[in-house]
């Protein structure tokens, strides 16, 4: 496949923006300025960036507890996200949700909530609406390897296949579900095998290589948009941080889970750094340009934190505002 340098730079920027945003959260989490549970996406940026680059604003995505990357890649407003993570009234869910509850309907970010696998059926329904309206939208359901433990996923795969719904099921297999390594929760690490069993167009793909992600996403989107039914993609990836917060869950520490050697191995596969090197090598990017982009993004991110910090928390007397819509 041939890529325009415009596209390559777009992917780079998209990933980098996620990474810098995620890492900007570490300090405020550690010093307890941020208190809601935050699940960092660092390490998985290629998936969000590569998928969303194939979607239009009108397309739908749904996510889970670890969805900052999905939200940003799909066009969700950065300031509103950061404000939400600080649980402020200016946040994208008005401080009602926090980090695990992001939304941006104007940009097709339709729902991100933390019940594992909880949005898979919702994404399936959104795709069903598209089929009924024949509006040519594609829906994407992002979920983790942990979500493959939930039965509703299989109901959704079957459902989507029967009605040929325009939906892509994106499983980000990062080898862990909280404290459980994948070997403890499946007999093998071949999640993708479930796709064909339900009749879905299925791919298994390296998740840390944004170009490979892009390609497989492109095929899947075309498949869905063409009315040929749903697709299932398993991406092999890794979260550079531990399950929640910046803690790395290194063996021997208090949150004693992951071997250091494994973490190191995956650090070498860092999707952002590797893609940067590739672009540098290909001369699509210069060191100087890279530094400028980082500066710019860091400024944007800092502004977002400032905005969030200046914003107030929701007023106590508005507690009951959103129980029922009128």
């Amino acid at each position: 496949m041939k890529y325009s340098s415009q596209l390559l730079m777009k992917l780079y920027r998209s990933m980098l923006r996620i990474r810098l945003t995620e890492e900007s959260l570490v300090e405020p989490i550690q010093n307890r300025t941020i208190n809601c549970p935050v699940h960092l996406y660092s390490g998985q940026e290629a998936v969000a960036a590569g998928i969303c680059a194939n979607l239009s604003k009108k397309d739908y995505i749904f996510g889970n507890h670890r969805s900052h990357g999905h939200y940003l890649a799909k066009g969700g407003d950065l300031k509103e996200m950061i404000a939400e993570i600080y649980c402020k009234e200016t946040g994208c869910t008005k401080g009602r949700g926090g980090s695990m509850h992001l939304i941006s309907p104007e940009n097709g970010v339709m729902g991100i909530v933390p019940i594992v696998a909880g949005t898979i059926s919702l994404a399936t329904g959104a795709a069903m609406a598209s089929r009924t309206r024949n509006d040519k939208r594609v829906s994407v359901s992002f979920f983790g390897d942990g979500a493959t433990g939930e039965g509703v996923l299989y109901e959704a795969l079957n459902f989507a296949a029967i009605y040929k719904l325009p939906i892509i099921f994106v499983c980000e297999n990062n080898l862990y579900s909280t404290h459980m390594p994948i070997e403890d929760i499946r007999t093998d690490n071949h999640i993708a095998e479930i796709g064909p069993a339900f009749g879905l167009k299925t791919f298994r793909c390296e998740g840390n290589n944004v170009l490979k992600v892009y390609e497989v996403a492109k095929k899947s989107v075309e498949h869905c948009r063409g009315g040929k039914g749903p697709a299932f993609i398993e991406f092999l990836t890794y979260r550079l941080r531990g399950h929640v917060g910046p803690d790395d869950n290194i063996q021997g520490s208090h949150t004693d889970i992951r071997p250091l050697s494994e973490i190191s191995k995956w650090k070498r596969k860092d999707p952002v750094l590797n893609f940067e090197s590739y672009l540098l090598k290909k001369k699509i990017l210069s060191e100087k340009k890279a530094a400028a982009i980082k500066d710019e993004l860091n400024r944007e991110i800092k502004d977002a934190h400032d905005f969030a910090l200046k914003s107030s928390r929701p007023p106590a007397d508005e507690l009951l505002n959103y129980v029922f819509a009128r």
Partner: protein
Amino acid sequence: MSSPGKRKLNFALAINEALTQMLESDESVMLIGQGVKSPWYVGNTCKNLIERFGEKRVIDTPVSENVTTGAAVGVAIAGMKAIVVHPRVDFAVYAFDPIINQAANWFFMSGGRSTVPVVFWLIVNRGGEQAAQHSQSFHAFFSHVPGLKVVAPATAYDAKGLMIAAINDKNPVVFLDERWLYGVEDNVPEEIYEVPIGKGIVRREGTDVTLISFSWLLHQSLKAAEQLAQQGINAEVIDIRSLKPLDEELIISSVKKTGRVVVVDGTWKFCGYSSEIISLIMENGGIDFLKATPLRVNLPDAPAPASESLEKVYYISTDTIVNSVKSLFSK
């Protein structure tokens, strides 16, 4: 054609008419659920819908309550209006995640940015020796969970009007009906109309005691009121019909007037729907205006049995209601 307001229709066909007219008049309406194309599965409430509106708007499903319900929620999130039916509320237990965790919390969790106009139409079975897993009713639980509206019509008129109101509501509405009601017949206007969610209705005026009921037992309560009248007790009968939001004023003002109350609630007693009514009355000054102990008439605290001999004592009869009311006057 019958003249407006005079046409009789039964409960099941009133629902069918509500669905037909809403599918007809609003192309964003969809109906999803097990049995919508079955010749027998959901009575005749879904008659001709799939033939008329096609398989993209009226969707029969595999036995997958969870994704079916979640998909309906997703349809609503995506800007359409969804109705999802479960032929027995017991089957919907598999789907409590989309109902309770997702739909009920959605508008709030999204900071008011995303609405879920979905109707969870859950059919209650009673009797027929179908036993414990086919005869439950969870009215109290649905009413307990913030973010859900809950309706339970007793007449064909309300079945149509509340179904239409539920479809048009921006919030998730749990629509609970019972098969025993499907033959109930009354006047049903031919046009589209809404029965407002949040409003109860006095079905019989009275002065001595207020019977508060909903769904199938409303009819038993009305019968009980007739029998009581012959014994000199003039009962007012209220049909709650909107379990949540509840028409508190209607209840309070009636009980203030009569000074006595029996809540006739066809579900389990402990932490049940009737206990909310009693508590509400007490919080609104019951201690000052009640002339007798407020009573609850409920199912016994047991799963539903199969055998008819047990069903007969398990379900609530007119006699039980009559006796309960009379006990208030005997001392």
